[in-house]
């Protein structure tokens, strides 16, 4: 999200010039967002039981039906076991040794506007490069030739700090267009009919261990509703920050694109460097009606832990989009560079006829990171199409796994899928794995899957070196070339930052 920087803070200035690269290198190639904000916090007691679930619900001032929903999820969670099939290895998580709710004391009374928000919180986001003031426009795209100078690009942000949403920008302007963009806690109160109608319909309460846990204890997150025929006037984004120690973040995002609407949604996340691992279990549900389109882009940059694997975020995320209407379209783009352990499979249910799902992913794992990520494309409707482009890069002692499912149901006549997953290995201590599941149950469906694994080409490196490019930069250049297909699918704000991240994450991996 650093590309959303307003350009005034030092250390987060982004660009693609060599100077910046050098500046970043001076920090030792280390995680840039590892600082923490010293702020008075209010915690729920450690551990998880029905009382904690009740407490979270009451802190959010929720109606009875929401509490019941949570308790039901909690009871189901108790009966579930943690999945062990992913190619990741981490010490057993003590779910009782976590805080499930933490909010800055100043947020006890919800500020009415951003002006009332604790300056410390605003400073935190400013330092991260997230503009929470509406007059600020995006850095990095200013003066770009293809942008009309009269109408600078705006991005509305919902900022989530530990368990609460700090504020949402541009709400008024969005309201004029009929778009609802607010925190999910607000939506439960203000738009219960929409939440009731859609929550848990894409990712059911008992979908999987972590989604069930999330359903019980989610504290906040974002809610988006785009009414029929509306093209959302600006990009929407949520920025998640974990700050408190020993605290899990469980956010819930619900996006509804009604008939013929369009929205592009960005998500970013960071956390301080801590020796203890922290848990993050989010659920994102997207509902796409007839002729609507949703673009969901993530740059996941949680703290990955140090080079010995100490600390870092355990990122267990369930993301799913349901193309309910005909010709609905969804596009997931993700750049996964952070987290100690990633377990994440953004999926598409292609229910409507002629609906389309796309998944573009770059997963970079360095040092002791482990990533098990991919997608599911479930073709139910006729003439549905999906495309998967996944690029995995492993360096250091990291393990990177692509795991995916392409399923063609008997009724998915003339459905098409193309999958390409490539892996790049940098160094001989790491691993790259591919675990695709392909299920074709009708003969008019066409499925093509290809995957390759290779190392950074010596000849390409030599070519760059010969022209005076340093070795690390040369690797970054080759890797950027390898990732190009995915980077091009990102919104511009992200593409630049992602390119930068690709370089930073590989820092120190050469030699």
């Amino acid at each position, binding site marked *: 999200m650093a590309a959303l920087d307003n350009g005034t803070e030092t250390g987060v200035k982004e660009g693609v010039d060599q100077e910046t690269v050098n500046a970043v290198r001076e920090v030792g190639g280390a995680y840039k967002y590892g600082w923490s904000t010293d702020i008075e916090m209010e915690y729920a007691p450690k551990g998880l039981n029905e009382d904690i679930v009740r407490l979270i619900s009451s802190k959010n001032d929720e109606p009875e039906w929401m509490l019941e929903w949570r308790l039901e999820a909690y009871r189901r969670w108790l009966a579930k076991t943690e999945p062990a099939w992913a190619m990741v290895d981490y010490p057993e998580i003590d779910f009782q040794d976590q805080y499930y709710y933490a909010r800055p004391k100043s947020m006890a009374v919800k500020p009415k506007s951003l002006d009332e928000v604790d300056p410390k919180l605003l400073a935190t986001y400013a330092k991260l490069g997230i503009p929470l003031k509406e007059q600020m426009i995006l850095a990095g795209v200013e003066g770009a030739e293809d942008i009309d100078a009269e109408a600078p690009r705006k991005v509305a942000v919902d900022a989530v700090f530990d368990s609460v949403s700090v504020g949402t920008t541009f709400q008024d302007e969005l309201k004029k267009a009929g778009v609802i963009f607010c925190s999910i806690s607000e939506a439960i109160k203000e738009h219960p009919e929409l939440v009731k109608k859609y929550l848990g319909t894409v990712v059911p309460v008992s979908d999987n261990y972590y989604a069930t846990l999330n359903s019980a204890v989610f504290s906040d997150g974002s809610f988006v509703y785009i009414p029929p025929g509306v093209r959302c006037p600006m990009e929407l984004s949520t920025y998640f920050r974990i700050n408190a120690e020993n605290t899990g973040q469980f956010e819930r995002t619900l996006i509804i694109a009604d008939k013929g609407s369009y929205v592009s949604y960005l998500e970013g996340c960071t956390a301080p460097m801590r020796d203890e691992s922290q848990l993050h279990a989010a659920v994102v549900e997207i509902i796409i009606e007839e002729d609507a389109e949703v673009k969901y882009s993530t740059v996941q940059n949680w703290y990955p832990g140090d080079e010995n694997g100490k600390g870092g975020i355990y990122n267990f995320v369930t993301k799913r989009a349901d193309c309910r209407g005909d010709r609905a379209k969804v596009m997931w783009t993700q750049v996964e560079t952070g987290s100690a352990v990633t377990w994440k499979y953004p999926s598409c249910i292609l229910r409507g006829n002629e609906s389309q799902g796309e998944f573009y992913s770059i997963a970079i794992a360095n040092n002791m990171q482990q990533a098990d990520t991919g997608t599911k494309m479930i073709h139910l409707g006729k003439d549905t199409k999906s495309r998967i482009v996944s690029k995995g890069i492993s360096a250091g002692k990291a393990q990177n796994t692509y795991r995916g499912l392409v399923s*063609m149901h008997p009724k998915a006549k003339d459905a098409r899928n193309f999958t390409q997953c490539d*892996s790049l290995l940098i160094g*001989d201590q790491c691993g790259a*794995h591919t675990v*695709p599941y392909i*299920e074709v149950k009708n*003969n008019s*469906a*066409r499925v093509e*899957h290809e995957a390759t694994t290779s190392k950074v080409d010596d000849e390409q490196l030599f070519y760059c070196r010969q022209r005076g490019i340093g070795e690390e930069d040369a690797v970054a250049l080759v890797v950027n070339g390898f990732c190009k297909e995915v980077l091009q699918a990102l919104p511009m704000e992200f593409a630049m930052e992602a390119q930068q991240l690709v370089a930073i994450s590989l820092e120190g991996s050469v030699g």
Partner: protein
Amino acid sequence: MALAQVKIEATEERLNTLDMPQEGWSTAAREDALMRLRSMGLPSRRDEYWKYTRPDTLVQPTAPDAAVLHTDEVPVFDALGRLKIVFVDGVFSADESDDLTLEGVTIERLAGATADIHWAKGLYGVLENNGQNPVERPLAALNTAYATDGVLIHVTGTPSKPINLIYRHISNSSDAILHHVLKIDKGAEVTILENGPAAARFNKCMEIDVADGAKFHHVRAQGRDHERRAATHIFARLGTESSFKSFTLTANGVMTRNECVIELTGDDAHATVAGAALGDGDFHHDDTVFITHDAVNCESRQVFKKVLRNGATGVFQGKILVKSGAQKTDGYQISQSLLLDEDSQFLAKPELEIYADDVACSHGSTSGAIDEEALFYLRSRGVPVGEATDMLTLSFLAEAVEEIEHSTLAEEINERLAAWLARRRG
């Protein structure tokens, strides 16, 4: 993790129907295998490795009946010069078999080899045991423990003709367990042919040790009896500069699970596993391949093609594991299915697991119907639709058949494929 009670019960129920042969030298290996089997239990439909194939009928205490196919056609490989070894419903038939002497090779039977010090002791159950990690293969352990017969082939030179294992099926309820061991000495070369349905239910295991510079060729045609069931395993260990090539034709059979586990342990070794499967109606065919690269500069190829119609199911689970240090590995894997109608299905899990950086590994998997444009092209040139479909189907299968090194064998297989298609065209 402790085994589920239901799994223990199912395993014991099956074991109660079996008697362990007491053959002297193999007893210790059999008892070890039985312990292994008890610790893992027989497969159940909830096991991840059996996600796409229900093991029930392969595991149940007695074999489901399978009618014997009566046909006038000449059995495959009949026209070739070969040494025949015949098993009828899993029982060795001395009358139908040739004399087991051949230059460059010694052939003994598992059931007859009672000498206490036997060369096969170092291999019997050993390669199977190696192949149990990281994925369990309980049916192979069961085979090692309870195999009633099989051949022990020690190849010391280059025999002048192939050795043909023929499995005849004459009883509707036969349940056969055979275990073969092959040791191919340094620089030696042998071709093994296998054909026939074997039994109503057939569990076969073949362990092959290919020494440095040795070559192993294998072509198999599984019998066409529609209701037969088979679970087969190949475990191979490859030395430096050795070569392993195996091709399997499967036409019909209500249940087939062919597992192939290969470990490339010497540098510059080569392994190819290929298969063509033709299924019509109540047909379930599963190719499960696991290739481990544990040496430098080795090459492996997996080429599998399946043609499916009338609700037939094809499964492919293939894995290339490149261990750390197995640099310069070249791994290739392709699995494709041609679905000739709306009811058939193809389920695939083509996996890569790679821990070395200087490797080139690729896999591809596709599934779809006959290419309408190609069909139109042929029809516009006057080829009737049935023949045109067959031509395209054969060309689809050709990539797998081409993996057979000997052209006469490849031709023989192609003829069988064409005949199968022609019979269905009516």
